[in-house]
């Protein structure tokens, strides 16, 4: 099975998890974003250009599934894929995925993603810019980065073994 077909199935599965199950992990209205982790993974495995395209595709699919503000996730996840692509190194993919670098990359990418996302998402509401970036954006980033520990440990175990 082609790698990209596998990515499609995983994307569908993760989208279902993000929309249906991640609400169980919601803390004070903050939900981790596993699709961002997934896009960072694709970027580290495939490079910048595929990650950008996958980012757009995953974001648009997520928007269409949720039906909430169509185009916003497509925009932010395109940027997400593009930025994560800067950390692509063909020879160190396994090393990066199985180390703290993976978390740092997710942290950076997620921070940019969430900042853009919440700035746009909170427009026209009574939530100010500072609260949008610091409270919602930064908290979601930290939560997502924390959740990245699970795949990081999995990759570390897989590649070390």
């Amino acid at each position: 099975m082609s790698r990209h077909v596998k990515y499609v199935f995983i994307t569908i599965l993760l989208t279902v998890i993000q929309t249906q199950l991640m609400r169980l992990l919601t803390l004070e209205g903050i939900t981790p974003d596993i699709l961002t982790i997934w896009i960072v993974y694709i970027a580290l495995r495939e490079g910048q250009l595929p990650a950008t395209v996958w980012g757009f595709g995953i974001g648009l699919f997520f928007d269409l599934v949720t039906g909430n503000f169509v185009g916003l996730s497509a925009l932010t996840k395109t940027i997400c894929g593009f930025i994560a692509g800067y950390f692509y190194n063909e020879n160190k993919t396994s090393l990066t995925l199985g180390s703290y670098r993976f978390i740092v990359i997710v942290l950076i990418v997620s921070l940019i993603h969430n900042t853009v996302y919440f700035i746009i998402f909170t427009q026209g509401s009574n939530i100010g810019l500072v609260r949008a970036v610091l409270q919602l954006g930064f908290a979601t980033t930290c939560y997502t980065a924390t959740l990245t520990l699970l795949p990081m440990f999995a990759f570390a175990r897989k590649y070390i073994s």
Partner: protein
Amino acid sequence: MLGASLSWLEMLRFITIVLVFKEYVVLALLVILSLLILGANDNTQIRAIRSYTVGAVGILQSALSVIPNVVQLKRENEVLHQLTVNLSDEVNRLREARLENLRLRAMLGLKEHATFTLAAAEVVGKSLHLLRNTITVNVGENDGVKPDMPIISESGLVGKIIVTSRQYSIGQLMLNKDFRASAKIQRSRVDGIIAWDGGDYLRLQNVSKTQDVKEGDVVTTSEYSGTFPRDIKIGFVSKTSEKPGNLFLDIDVIPSVDFPSLEQVFIITAVKDTERVAIEKKFIRTK
């Protein structure tokens, strides 16, 4: 051939640039596509963003408006120039209308206070540089105008009708060598005959040196005239002088009517007192 080669070269160069920066090109395309999809939404966020965008564009335009746009300035200058010409033309027309309004008001006042019947007329022809000056007016026999009827304006006596047709009449002005009218000094009731000898002023003739005439005295028509009603203003005395060996005063009279600017007049359509004229003629014949 050379042009085609150049265009192929340019195309190749473009493709090379796209391939070198393909990540950025793809990013730009996908961001634009995302923004287009975002713009298709109609929710609070997009409305707020549209509002900010309009505000930002307004601020940008306001900031850029400081930089003079030569083409726009030229066009604006042309428009303003055209506007100035149009407004200037309109001001002239309004000024003309105001003057006409003032004249007509004065004439209306005269008509309301006059004790005789008046026919309003417009001056359609005029000669002022001859010894026998006349005006042509646009009323005639159809309007009841006949020869010898006096012509007046709001300023005073103008002359009298000498020739009529059905729709037009010719008036003899006071500035005509053949014109004569009985006149008097309003203040001292001294009588004389008003005439014109081709000079700058009218002359009040047949006033003896002993009569009381002063500069500034108003001259009007007298009751002795068979043609003109009494007390119509003729002008005022500008100078009196005496010549040795002459029994009469030389009296210059400035006409109250400004003949060069004369545009509207009235014809007094009252008929002469024929009985009086007849007895006067009979008396003259029997003498």
